[in-house]
């Protein structure tokens, strides 16, 4: 909670104002039953004697004025509290968003995407609610509680002992229930997660489930988890509904005791009857306060967990600083990998006991400006990792990566990345116009955007739309087909005429014809551009100047198409299978 408090600190003045107003309101509220007692025990007997009703009406008016004051104070203070919550969380979110966007690939992976999203959304929301709540109820409830006890003690110390005895009892009780309840609800959550998991499996695999006629089996599986969930839910619920009735009972027992003890006190003349009446009212107020405190505690446990998760991201140390240029890159080819080795950091959780092997092992290659490189290899062999190191999403464990005569670690990150136009594997089309998706905030001139769209073979599609370039893509481009998305992404990469173009498996959703046309367009219109293509189709890379064949992170082939056909068995195998020299699937004819 510490780091979040810093954000709130800036509003200390407003908070103090709010709390003071709240304090005034609460005290005013506490006075109301006091006046009630005074009216009955003090004014009424006197007024009876003098026969004038004026003092009663006057005190009644005072009570109403107090009630109005209480309302005014509470509302004002609540609004101030809400404004503090608003302003502080706005800043928290801004900083958290900023920080998340600047996380390195390694750190981003360590936190995982869903977790980062929920930190940004539900966690900041929890903290916001709590900041508002603690100022509203967190102040009022304790004052109510202690003020109530104090005033009752002033009225009649003996009678107030009943109250004072009951408070710790209630406190311990609430504390115990909450402590018991939290782990129970955790278990419920686990069952819910399991149920969701089963549903997700069945929905994504519905074709398999149906094809194998396993629907009954799946229904049974669902029934059983659903039953487990219900049982667990009822168990947790039975504990958590207890406080309400029990607190009510405590209060009512207290009331009864007040009446009995009060009877003795009145009989002995040490107390007046009106006090009993006031006490009953205070009891109600105090009960409300205790319930409010209970709420605050519950909210606190939730909010502090959330705050911790937010702070963890914010406090994450910068793991990829910009190094001082040692000029070692002067004179090396445009892109150079020098003895580069890398393995992804161990995941924090859920690695399932599978240790990660070295992802890249001693990679060496050079590329001159304007040359093209193809990277081939099986899934998980490290193709994408080469791109990740080249653009410095991660830092290599060993060896060095140079771009344009400088170690990538010595670049200001923005300068480095501006050299690239890239389409990642499963890249994102954002919910914005197609124009903006291609332009992507770079103020590229409109003519250039259209040219890029043309080169990416997507201009025809766009220009046939009613809104043309103003056509709005849905979130994640859901209203575009796979091929359309990919072409928009390629247009984005081309638009700024970058020094280096990187396509990570980006032609897989394109049919051969489009793929071929695209390659032609790049050859013709982007001559000085260095091109790096990661692909599975041999036809996508065979015309490149250099080709790397990767296996388990090692380079098992490096050279031109012709060279590799002679020197690399694996490459030849792939070539044969894809280009049809060997019957791929039909060995039986």
């Amino acid at each position, binding site marked *: 909670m510490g780091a979040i408090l810093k954000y709130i600190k800036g509003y200390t003045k407003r908070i103090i104002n709010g709390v003071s107003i709240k304090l005034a309101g609460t005290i005013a509220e506490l006075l109301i039953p006091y006046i009630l007692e005074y009216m009955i025990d003090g004014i009424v007997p006197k007024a009876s004697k003098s026969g004038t009703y004026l003092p009663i009406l006057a005190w*009644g008016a005072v009570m109403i004025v107090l009630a109005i004051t209480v309302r005014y104070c509470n*509302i004002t203070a609540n609004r101030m509290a809400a404004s503090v919550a608003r302003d502080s969380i706005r800043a928290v979110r801004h900083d958290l968003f900023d920080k998340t966007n600047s996380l390195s690939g390694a750190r981003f992976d360590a936190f995982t995407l869903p977790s980062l999203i929920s930190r940004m959304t539900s966690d900041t929301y929890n903290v916001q609610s709590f900041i508002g709540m603690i100022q509203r109820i967190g102040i009022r409830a304790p004052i109510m509680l202690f003020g109530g006890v104090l005033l009752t003690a002033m009225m009649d110390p003996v009678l107030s002992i009943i109250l004072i005895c009951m408070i710790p009892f209630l406190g311990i009780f609430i504390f115990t229930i909450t402590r018991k309840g939290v782990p129970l609800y955790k278990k419920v959550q686990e069952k819910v997660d399991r149920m969701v998991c089963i549903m997700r499996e069945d929905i994504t695999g519905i074709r398999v489930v149906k*094809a*194998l006629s396993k629907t009954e089996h799946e229904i049974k599986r669902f029934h059983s988890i659903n039953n487990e969930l219900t049982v667990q839910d009822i168990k947790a619920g039975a504990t958590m*509904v207890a406080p309400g009735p029990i607190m*009510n009972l405590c209060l009512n027992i207290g009331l009864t005791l007040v009446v009995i003890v009060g009877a003795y006190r009145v009989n002995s003349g040490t107390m007046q*009857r009106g006090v009993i009446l006031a006490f009953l009212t205070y009891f109600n107020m105090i009960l409300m306060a205790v319930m409010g405190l209970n709420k605050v505690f519950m909210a606190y446990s939730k909010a502090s967990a959330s705050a911790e998760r937010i702070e963890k991201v914010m406090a994450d140390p910068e793991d990829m600083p910009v190094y001082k240029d040692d000029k070692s890159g002067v004179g090396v080819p445009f892109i150079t990998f020098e003895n580069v080795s890398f393995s992804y950091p161990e995941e924090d959780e859920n690695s399932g006991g599978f240790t990660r092997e070295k992802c890249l092992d001693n990679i060496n290659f050079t590329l001159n400006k304007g040359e093209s490189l193809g990277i081939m290899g099986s899934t998980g062999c490290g193709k994408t990792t080469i791109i990740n190191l080249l653009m410095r999403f991660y830092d290599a464990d060993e060896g060095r990566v140079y771009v344009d005569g400088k170690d990538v670690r010595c670049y200001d990150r923005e300068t480095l990345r501006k050299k690239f136009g890239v389409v990642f594997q499963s890249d994102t089309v954002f*919910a914005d116009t197609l124009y903006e998706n291609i332009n992507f905030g770079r103020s590229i001139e409109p003519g250039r955007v259209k040219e890029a769209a043309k080169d990416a073979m997507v201009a025809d599609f766009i220009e046939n739309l009613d809104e043309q370039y103003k056509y709005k893509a849905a979130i*994640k481009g859901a209203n575009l087909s796979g091929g359309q998305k990919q072409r928009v992404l390629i247009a984005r990469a081309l638009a700024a005429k970058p020094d280096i173009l990187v396509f990570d498996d980006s032609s897989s959703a394109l*049919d051969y014809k489009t793929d071929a046309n695209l390659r032609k367009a790049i050859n013709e219109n982007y001559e000085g551009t260095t091109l790096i293509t990661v692909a599975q189709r041999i036809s996508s890379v065979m015309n490149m100047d250099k080709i790397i064949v990767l296996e388990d992170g090692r380079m098992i082939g490096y050279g031109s198409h012709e060279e590799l056909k002679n020197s690399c068995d694996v490459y030849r195998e792939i070539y044969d299978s894809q280009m049809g020299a060997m019957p791929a699937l039909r060995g039986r004819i």
Partner: protein
Amino acid sequence: MARRESVIEKPKGKPKKIFRRLLKYAGLYKWAFLFALLLSIISNLLSLVGPKLSGSAIDAIGGRGSVDFDKVFYYAKLMLIFYIASSVLSYALSILMMNIGRNITRGMRNEVFEKLMTLPVGYFDRHQAGDIISRVSYDIDVINSSLSTDVVQILSSIITVVGSLAMMISVCPILVIVVLITIPMSVIYTKYMTGRTRPLFSKRSAKYGEMNGFTEEMFSGQKTICAYAHEEKTMEDFDKINEGAVEAYFDAEYYGTMVGPTVNFINNFSLALIATFGSLLYMGFGGISITLGQISSFVLYSRKFSGPINEAANIISDFQSALAAAERVFKVLDEEEEVQDIEGAAELNEVQGNVELQSVSFGYTKDKTIIHDLNLKALAGKLTAIVGPTGAGKTTIINLLMRFYDVQKGSILVDDKEIKTITRKSLRKAYAMVLQDTWVFRGTVFENIAYGKENATKEEVINAAKAARIHTYIMRLPKGYDTVIGEDGVNISKGQRQLLTIARAMLLDAKMLILDEATSNVDTRTEIQIQQAMRELMHDKTCFVIAHRLSTVRNADNILVVNNGDVVEQGTHDSLMNKKGFYYKLYASQFE
């Protein structure tokens, strides 16, 4: 993550109809509900007696030296009994309602899930998994919490208000005038405020949802944003959305936080009025006299009003959310199911594997036919390939073969039997299938392979795994065949997942095989490695292969070329190449 914040949403359908349908679920627990109502009435009535008793007790406390202790103790004893009984009953009531609610939830979940399993596969293509899941988990929860708590709450509120009023009248009719001022005040105010705040709260939810969506999108694309140094622009956009979200929060709070203090005010206000008028009456004003005990009872009764009034607003919005949620759940329940087997459908036994399509026409919607008059013969053991550009509708034919959908015209025959006359289960059993999306579930490796064959022995599974060339890999796993694969198969690679699904298909021993872009997820290198396994799988089977690598289909006995949903050409590789049509162009383009 779905936010567990009640989104106030107005149901779009007819609320009365939805409500009546919801009541049916409650009807299943009619007796439990009636019992709950009874408990609720008794418990509330018992607690209503309390203030009257305490008033009487106070009256028995005359003053110094004149306390009637017998009476005080008598009333105190009654108070205790009534209060304890009321608390016990209200606890029992909570437990009962919770049980009813959870059981209704369980029933609804089962019902929806069972329904889901009967829906055609197309439903799952059209709806996002997250959306379906949230209907089953979140929406049903919303309905339940409203059903189980609100019903009782409404009832007990009514009892409390009416009961308190009755008790007040019995205590002192004149003082009731006070309540006649404060009750309308509360009602008018609450009504005004709910009207005022509801749009604000739904705006808050909407803005918040907007922020969620934006965050999710931007974080998913974080790498792209970094790659294009787009951070500043993104930050600006986020700031705008964030501003909208916090402002909407503040607007809602601005009015929302008025409700508590105002209800509190009405409470204090009525206390002041009762104190004033009570004191006046106590003094004998206007010739009516009233005791101190009566004032006390009155104060306590008037306090009882605040609860229900405060709750009313919440209940109304809860209820509206529940109706909206119910509408979404009912929508699933009203979806059209897969067509049932015809009566007396035969089992398909001893399959040869001869498949024939006779002038088949089909469209996903009735008004749009995409396959026109398709004729196709796939004899036992032959290979049929289906090729075409992405999104051309290659999967449609598979959907028809497996009877995920029924043809509109014409017929499909397996071993000369019209497939509509045989049970769906036995038809599907005749096919083995390996799909592009390699599907594994959280369970052991063994369970995953044996999924299609009940009571598969360990030996059979191992043999299948060996045939699929994955046995050695499995043995290297920490617990071999008992290793649990995580959700979505996170801990094994795509290639290995594909091999697992091949092993699963191997175990089936079906006569017909469907490969739906089965190797598009694995790269060529892995493809070569599993080729042998594939070949073994295809041996002796009637195969239908969807592929976008044309090299893999060259040797097919028959090639269907699909474009824009329809089959445009059909024939062997050589005949299609000679024809120089669509297939020729498609094939030639990969060498350009």
